[in-house]
C-alpha cells in the first residue's frame, strides 16, 4: 500500500456559507468560502467544527463534494437525532460561519494515472459524496479513464445529485435496496455478487475500486469485490461510521 502525503499543514480556519442547495428532503449541499483555500484532491475530506454561543464545540468529518479546482462544498445528509448534521441541513444559512480544517486524507483519493486503470466507484447512501467528486474531476479534465459508479440507495427520494448523475447514465447505475421507481427493471435488493459481477470491471483489467458509505455497506461491498477477484490493495475504502 502506498499513500501520497497531503499538504503538511492543517489548521482550523473560518469558513463562510456562500450558498445552499437542497439535494432532497434530507440532504443539502453547502457552498463554502475559505480564504486561502489550498485546493484539494477528489476523495479528500475536511473536519468541520461548530461552536455554540456558550463555547460548546462539536466536530465531524465531511467529504469534499466538488472537483479539485472548485470551491469547497459539502453535501450533508441529516442523521435523525444527530448533533451536527440536522444543524447543517436545516438551520445554517448563507452568511453563517463554521470552522474547517483540511483538506485531509492522502489515500482515499483519485487522480488520473498514466495507466488509465479502470475505476469502479461503489457508494452506499451518503458515501456517494467523495465518489461524485471523482466523477466530476474526470469530467472536468476531459479524462478518458474508464470510470463507473454503482450507487446503492434505499429509495428514489434518497438519491443525491439526481440530475447530475442522470446526465451520465452510461457511467452510473442505481441499485435500490427498499423501493424502486415505478417500472424499474430490478426489484429492490441489497447489492449482491450477481449485481456486482454484472457491473464491475473484470479483475483482469487491473481495476481500482473506491468504496464509501456506512460501515456495514463498506464491509459487505469490499468483501464482494475481493470475492470477485479484486486485489485487496486496490480496493480503497472510506467508512462513515
Amino acid at each position: 500500500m502506498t499513500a501520497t502525503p497531503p499538504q503538511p499543514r492543517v489548521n482550523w480556519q473560518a469558513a463562510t456559507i456562500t450558498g445552499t442547495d437542497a439535494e432532497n428532503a434530507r440532504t443539502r449541499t453547502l457552498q463554502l468560502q475559505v480564504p486561502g483555500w489550498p485546493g484539494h484532491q477528489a476523495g479528500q475530506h475536511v473536519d468541520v467544527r461548530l461552536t455554540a454561543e456558550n463555547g460548546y464545540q462539536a466536530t465531524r468529518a465531511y467529504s469534499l463534494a466538488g472537483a479539485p479546482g472548485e470551491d469547497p462544498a459539502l453535501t450533508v445528509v441529516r442523521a435523525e437525532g444527530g448533533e451536527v448534521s440536522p444543524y447543517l441541513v436545516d438551520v445554517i444559512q448563507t452568511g453563517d460561519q463554521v470552522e474547517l480544517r483540511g483538506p485531509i486524507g492522502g489515500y482515499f483519493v483519485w487522480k488520473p494515472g498514466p495507466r488509465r486503470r479502470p475505476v469502479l466507484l461503489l457508494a452506499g447512501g451518503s458515501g456517494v459524496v467523495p465518489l461524485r467528486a471523482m466523477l466530476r474531476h474526470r469530467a472536468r479534465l476531459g479524462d478518458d479513464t474508464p470510470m463507473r459508479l454503482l450507487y446503492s440507495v434505499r429509495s428514489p427520494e434518497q438519491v443525491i445529485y439526481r440530475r447530475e448523475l442522470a446526465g451520465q447514465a452510461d457511467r452510473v447505475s442505481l441499485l435500490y435496496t427498499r423501493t424502486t421507481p415505478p417500472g424499474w427493471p430490478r426489484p429492490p435488493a441489497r447489492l449482491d455478487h450477481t449485481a456486482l459481477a454484472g457491473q464491475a470491471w473484470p479483475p483482469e483489467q487491473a481495476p481500482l475500486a473506491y468504496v464509501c458509505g456506512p460501515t456495514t455497506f463498506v464491509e459487505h461491498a469490499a468483501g464482494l469485490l475481493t470475492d470477485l477477484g479484486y486485489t485487496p490493495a486496490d480496493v480503497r475504502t472510506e467508512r462513515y461510521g
Partner: protein
Amino acid sequence: MAVISRGFTGRGQTSNRLPPGQTLTTGFPVLTAGPTPHVSTADWNFTLLTETGTEHTWTWTELRDLPQDSPHTDIHCVTGWSKFDTDWQGVSLDILLAEVETNAQFAQAYCHGGYTTNLPLADLRGGQAWIAHTFDGAPLPAEHGGPARLLVPHLYFWKSAKWVQGIRLLEHDQPGFWERAGYHNYGDPWREQRYWND
C-alpha cells in the same frame, strides 16, 4: 477569536473523560483503508523481530497459553469518536517483550493486508499495550481486527493495529501507513495530535 456558528447549540455535554474534539459513541465505528482480511486462528501467529534480526514467534495456541489480562479502557478514534468502558482480553506486550533482548527505541507493527503503524517502544511497555483477541467477552470480530489486534488505548486507535502479524523493533523510527499519509507520528488524543504538525 472564536467563530460562533449561529443557532448551533449541540447536545452541550462535555466530559473531562472526553479528549478535545471527540464525540462519545455507543457504537463501534470502523476505520480501515481497505477490505477486511479474514485470517483463521490456525494460520495466525505473532512475531517480534528485533533490531538484530532475531525472531520470536507465538502461534495462536501459544499466545492463549500465556497469562491473560482483561483491560477495561476508553478508546479514541482520530475520526472523532470515543467509546467508554470497553472490555478486552489479551496478552500484555510486557510478557512478550520479556522474551526478547533489544536496545531498540522504536516499534512498527505490521499486519495482514499490508497495514503498518509505528510508535515508540516505551509506549508498548508498562502495562499500556496488549495483543487483544477478545472484545466484550466474545472473539474479536474480523472487521475490528480479529483474530487479534494490537491494543494501545492511550493513543488514537489507528495505532491499535488490526490483524496484527508482528512488531519490528527498530533503532530508528519508521512512519507507518497513516503516519505517511498525513496523520500524526505519535497520536496522543489528549494533545489532539491528529495530523502532521498538530
